[in-house]
């Protein structure tokens, strides 16, 4: 089966800074692919380049058999990509309900999906009427993920879902993401290697704006040398919670 998303050697500039210098990624359908790498390696920029928020200057982005590089971000999103940005960018002025409602791509999306969303994140039901800025960090992160589920998206781009979450919430987030992966494809950026290694089917390592390694997550977990070289996590720590 053809992959849902392929990046062919994309180059992205932000201002005059050459952030991505050749990122090539293949995301197979119905699996979780994880982007790994140090801070500032270009993982977030890769996600933004796929969506056209920071359009790549060179290279191809093929989503679902269609070249999308250079198209406007809203067009690309409407082809069926859901985005969960880092730092839980929920809309503070909007209630939880409105935060979900605004993500509708078709009329009635939210009504159709609300049961599924509440089954993943039961807390949101209780908080439904509250404004976004009344939510705790963890609740905001749940909301940010839930927002990407309202429309029927074929691919979810999730950026650092565990960032700043308490261990118990990381647990809940992992359960939710695993549940999601049954119905949709996920491209995940994650610094927490324990979470990444337990969720991912495939991995890519980005270093200095280039994809340097990729393969099955199983193989990476057993390759202590690679982990140490690119991720700065020594294998001794794997297994403990950060």
């Amino acid at each position, binding site marked *: 089966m053809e992959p849902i998303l392929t990046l062919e050697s994309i180059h992205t500039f932000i201002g005059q800074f050459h952030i991505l210098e050749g990122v090539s990624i293949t995301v197979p359908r119905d699996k979780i692919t994880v982007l790994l790498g140090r801070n500032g390696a270009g993982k977030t920029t890769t996600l933004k380049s796929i*969506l056209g*928020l920071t359009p790549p200057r060179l290279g191809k982005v093929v989503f679902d058999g269609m070249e999308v*590089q*250079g*198209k*406007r*971000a*809203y*067009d690309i*999103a*409407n082809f069926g990509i859901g*985005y969960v*940005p880092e730092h839980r*960018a929920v*809309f*503070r*002025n*909007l*209630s939880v309900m*409105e935060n979900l*409602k*605004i*993500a509708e*791509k078709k009329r009635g999306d939210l009504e159709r999906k609300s049961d599924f969303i509440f089954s993943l994140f039961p807390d949101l039901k209780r908080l439904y009427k*509250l*404004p976004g*800025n009344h939510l705790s960090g963890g609740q905001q992160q749940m909301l940010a993920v839930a*927002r990407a589920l309202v*429309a029927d998206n074929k691919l979810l781009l999730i950026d650092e879902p565990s960032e700043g979450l308490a261990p118990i919430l990381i647990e809940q987030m992992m359960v939710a993401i695993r549940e999601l992966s049954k119905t949709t494809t996920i491209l995940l950026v994650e610094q927490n290697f324990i979470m990444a290694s337990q969720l991912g089917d495939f991995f890519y390592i980005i270093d200095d704006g280039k994809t340097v390694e990729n393969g099955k997550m199983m193989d990476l977990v057993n390759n202590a040398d690679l982990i140490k070289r690119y991720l700065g996590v020594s294998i001794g720590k794997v297994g403990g919670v950060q």
Partner: protein
Amino acid sequence: MIQRFQFKRVLPSLIVVVIILGLGLASYRFMGQESFVRTALSGLTLGALYFMVAAGLTIIFGLMDVLNFAHGAMFMTGAYMGWQFYANPTFLFGILPLALAFVTGLATTSLWLPVVIKWQVPESWTKRINTTLIIVGLALVVVGFQKFDVLGLAETALVPVMHAGNPLAEASPQETLAVFWSRPVLLFLSGLLFAIAAARPGDKSQHVTNAKPTGAWIRVAGLVVVTAASVLLREPASIAVLKMNADIRFFLALIVGTGIGAGLGVLIEISLIRPLYARPFYIVLMTLGLGYVLRETVQLLWDPVAYAMERPPLFSQAGEAENIAAWFTGHNLTIDIVGVTFPSYRLFIIVLGGVMLLGLFLLMRYSRLGMIIRAGVQDRNMVEALGINVKAVFSVVFAIGVGLAALGGIGAAPFVPVQPNMGDVYQLQGFITVVIGGMGSYLGAGVGALLLGMARAFGDFLALKFSLSPAIAEASTVIVMIIVLLVRPAGLLGKKDE
């Protein structure tokens, strides 16, 4: 914005309310009931006018980061359009077919897209083709307006209507259809060329939906019919409007002027502001220049003279109504409000300001557009990433903002002189209002406008009472701004973190 009920959040507004109540009580004791009520009502009227300008400014700035220095000129344009429609709409109905023909041409853009994308245009030609299309298009506009008596049309509103049977008997410089018909055709062609340019030949990055363009065809066909009708009905329509009940004509003028303002807003956003989003400073210069262009154009059409727009009969029957209820039957010029004689039209302005605030509140709070605007004020990229065309929302918001300014202009027209620079003072006060209320907050604009209106009215009263220089009264609004900014640098309802 509405949903925050934490005490800390409401505290500044609460303090403001307490201070205002205190000041109000003190001035009530000091001034006596009559002057106090009179001054307070004047303050409300001014506040309503400031709000009409500030509301558009603040939502445009909040979402788009655009400081619109042409807002006062748009307020003025609205006043002129409303006045023209009310006094004699021959000018508007004479221009309408040309504008409609051009818009019809432009509306074909989405139909051209699938055609244009198939053209094999060499990259080096892309720019040249667009430039050529636009130059030829502009040339067609110039040819279309060749020997068109715009000034004669503009003057029709100055000729008093004498003949009840045919209100246009004294003033009708319209050319006959035999001469006129070629103009809309030329403008339609010009619009077509602009539409092709807007479809950007040679740009392969565009997305063509496979959906059948039936909707676009229907829209264009509808516009063609409307344009043809507007060509044929130029005079009958004017006569029909003039024969209408003057009160209905007045309310129609409010709607028409707002619509013209909104249309102008869309046109300006797409053609002038959109190319400049990457260079915010250029937008400031551009809007400043646009303000001059609008003022000079109006000056060219109607001379740099101040006109007085007649008040509709609803607010101009002789005598004084004993109270507001009595006005509903008498339609008097003035109303007795707890012993103060107050012009009924000014009360209408206050009501109009209140209705606008309520309308904006409902729009922002309960509509999908309002939801998108509130979200976009915080994070435009995220809204775009949800599949929403933020650029299109920008056009709508700019149209709403300019429409509100135009509505304010028409509302003001019957009691301030209609002249090319009538908007300038309101623009200045509008900016101060926006700063006081907090950039981007329309509720803040409401509170700020009220505060400023009162400051100005009571400042005037004090200046008169102690025979101070009127400059003190004018400075009062700035003094309020300084105090507010010292206490809350982001404005009363502004956000701290932005």
